[in-house]
């Protein structure tokens, strides 16, 4: 089922792998000509820690968190590459899953080429963050089927946040997380419906198999989405 208007605001695909890739190799990927031209904004994450224990001289350490690479504001894409994970974000405008997954696969293959050998994948994740508009006449219950309830005294004072975590029925390898949260966005009041799915994989190196798991997660994500929203919400986004 498709909606005429999409509530999707951000899509994130993430691969976790068993090896630890050093920062020089991640830099090699960042500097590939087509990567650096498509993702001209590159940020290095640094972490500074200061620790003191038992009154000894404080110890300081600075560590490198990998790279965050960003495209221009028309393409709205982000790559976040760390020593053990590779994430691709599509933000703001919606694009079809097929196109984005193929694009993600290309970046992943480029990354593996820089590493010099296939990586042993331990998990693949799909995350869809939806923003569902809520007008003053609508309640949470009118739009989503997953929501916290409060006594009347507190209902206007507390923001609603709920997190559900479960193994997806029928697929014990898939952990599903659903978050709903009230928020205010630039375009008005609404609800975040955040669905993220993790598929554990046993050190798989075959790219075809890995990306087949990604497609399996797509079906699960769609099923959960349509189970979490109400018929009123569907009608609203089909007008």
């Amino acid at each position, binding site marked *: 089922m498709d909606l005429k208007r999409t509530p999707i*605001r*951000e899509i*994130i695909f*993430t691969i*976790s*792998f068993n090896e*630890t890739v050093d920062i020089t190799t991640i830099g090699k990927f960042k500097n590939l000509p087509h990567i650096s031209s498509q993702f001209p904004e590159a940020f290095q*994450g640094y*972490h500074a*820690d200061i*620790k003191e*224990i*038992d009154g000894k001289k404080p110890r300081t*350490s600075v*560590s*490198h*968190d*990998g790279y965050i690479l960003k495209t221009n504001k028309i393409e709205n894409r*982000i790559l*976040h590459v*760390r*020593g*053990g*994970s590779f*994430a691709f*974000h599509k*933000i*703001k405008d919606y694009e079809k899953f097929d196109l984005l997954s193929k694009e993600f696969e290309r970046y992943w293959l480029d990354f593996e080429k820089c590493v010099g050998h296939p990586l042993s994948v*331990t*998990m693949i994740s799909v*995350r869809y*963050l939806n*923003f569902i508009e809520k007008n003053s006449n609508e309640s949470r219950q009118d739009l989503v089927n997953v929501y*916290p309830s409060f006594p009347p005294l507190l209902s206007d*004072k*507390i*923001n*609603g*946040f709920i*997190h559900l*975590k479960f193994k997806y029925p029928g697929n014990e390898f898939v952990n599903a*997380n659903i*978050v709903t*949260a009230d*928020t205010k966005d630039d375009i008005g009041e609404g609800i*975040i419906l*955040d669905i*993220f799915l*993790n598929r554990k994989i046993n050190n798989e190196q075959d790219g075809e198999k890995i990306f087949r798991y990604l497609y399996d997660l797509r079906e699960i994500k769609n099923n959960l989405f349509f189970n979490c929203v109400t018929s009123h919400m569907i009608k609203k986004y089909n007008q």
Partner: protein
Amino acid sequence: MRNNFEHIIFKERIFQSDIFGDQYREYFDENSSSAFNNPLFEDIDVLLNSILLKYPNLTTFQKDILVKLFDAFNNIRTQIDPNRLQSFEYCFNNDEELLLYRSTESGLTNIIINPDECVAYSFIGKNTNKRILKFYDSDSDFELLSLYFFSY
């Protein structure tokens, strides 16, 4: 005592969003009076402090090793992948050793911090005869030791 990293991993994952990350941070802001959140969210440093407070008689060597291990856990979280962290349990035994351990389907994996300048890593396979025993000192690679500890 069980030390559950799942909350830390979840927190790391939820903040991953470029669009809604700041919104989520507000939910988990302890100073926010209107946040409806889960008090279980913890940071790695808070977990370290809880062990130090629970066992005030740890030797300086044991405390130093624990700090190095938790530094390594933090590096794994920020630089490698938060999903590598796994829940573990810990206790203080009759030989005054601090034990961090994980019992999984693969077997039992331990880090033993002796009071007198010795650290050991062991793995005992459940369905195989696989046995690993390695010794470390204060200058060893604690990130590698942590990756071993979380790998089974």
